[in-house]
Each structure stands twice: as structure tokens, then as C-alpha cells.
């Protein structure tokens, strides 16, 4: 069964440091997403990405965040200068289509900002 893989599974960083979370979506999928889940809270949409550009982003996805698909397989989320409130589980997801899409999620990367 194809799966979305995410690395690292857990990252601990100091406030103000840059963090890059990596994802390898399913190979024939065209649409990519990042979501996050703060402990005990709902899963929140961050950004969607298609055809090498951002399709949509939420209010959370401010200029501290960026996404990139550097080599046609990886899909990365960068947080430039982490804050304490960025501590969360970050999920990458991909889907083959945009209409009535079913997302396949990775297992998540837990980010802890100290």
C-alpha cells in the first residue's frame, strides 16, 4: 500500500531556530498539503500545493512558513524562526485529484519548541 512518509518523527528545537520538516508524498499524487495538530486540539489546515505553487493557505501560514518541492519527490515545510506556539504535530498529506479528494496522511512529525 503506497504511503506518505515524513521525517523526522520528532524534532526538538530552541525558540528562534529554523526547522525543516520533510515529506515524501505518494508518487502519482499531484496535490500536497500540510496540516498541524496542537496537542488536544483539532487538526488545522496550513497550506495546499499544486503544480509547484501554493494553491491556498490559512491564516496560520504566515511569512514564517514556507513550502517547497525541491526535487519532484520531497515536499518540505520550513518554519524560519520557531515560536513556542509552533509546538505541534505536523501532518503532510497528498491526494491524486482535487475534486472530492481523499487525503492520504503521513504519520506526522512532532515538533517541540523549547
Amino acid at each position, binding site marked *: 500500500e503506497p504511503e*506518505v512518509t515524513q521525517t523526522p518523527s520528532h524534532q526538538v528545537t530552541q525558540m528562534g531556530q529554523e526547522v525543516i520538516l520533510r515529506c515524501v508524498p505518494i508518487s502519482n499524487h499531484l496535490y500536497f498539503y500540510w496540516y498541524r495538530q496542537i496537542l488536544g486540539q483539532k487538526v488545522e489546515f496550513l497550506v495546499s500545493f499544486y503544480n509547484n505553487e501554493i494553491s491556498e493557505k490559512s491564516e496560520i501560514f504566515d511569512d514564517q512558513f514556507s513550502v517547497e518541492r525541491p526535487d519532484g519527490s520531497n515536499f518540505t515545510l520550513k518554519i524560519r524562526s520557531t515560536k513556542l506556539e509552533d509546538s505541534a504535530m505536523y501532518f503532510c498529506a497528498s491526494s491524486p485529484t*482535487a475534486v472530492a*479528494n481523499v487525503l492520504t*496522511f503521513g504519520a*506526522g512529525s512532532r515538533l517541540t519548541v523549547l
Partner: protein
Amino acid sequence: SQQGEEDPQALSIQEGENATMNCSYKTSINNLQWYRQNSGRGLVHLILIRSNEREKHSGRLRVTLDTSKKSSSLLITASRAADTASYFCATDAATGANSKLTFGKGITLSVRP
């Protein structure tokens, strides 16, 4: 209340019983989906129901959708201990190029053996 709000927040049942989980939402949707999350893991898609459908089945899962009440329910019949997980409803209200799912806070289901 938020889009995609589930209730109850937590549900504990005995193995073999049925589990019913509800979800309410506020805006018009294209479809509604239910996902499952085991502790510390990613979300796994369970079932999708389109806005023009009223009921859908998949194995032991039955989902209903009432667009007039903006609500959905997920029924798991003959529950098993392995069904213990968090369950999320997610609404897809996209009008643009691609979908954006809005999730609720989830329901924690515990199935006692």
C-alpha cells in the same frame, strides 16, 4: 461552534456494542469525510459521503448526512477493541481549484474488551 464539530467528545463502550458519533457543521459542503487516528499516528480515511447522498455503508461503518440540519453521523456496528481510536469528521467546502478539509476536534472512542 466551529465547522466540523463532533460529539460526544469521548465515548466508552463494550466490545460488540454499536458506537454512534455525530458531527455538525456550519457552511455548505461538497462532501463530508470521516477519518480515524490511532494514538500518535496519522489520520486514515474511512469514508466519504457527497452532499447529494444521504447514507453510505462500508463494512461495519454506516455514515449518514443531513444537509438540511448540517449534520452527519458515523455508526460503527459490532465494535471491536481494535476500533479504539480518535475519529474526526472533515468537511470539504472547496469552491476553488482544490479541496481544503476542515476537521473537528475529534471523538475519542474506547472499546473495552
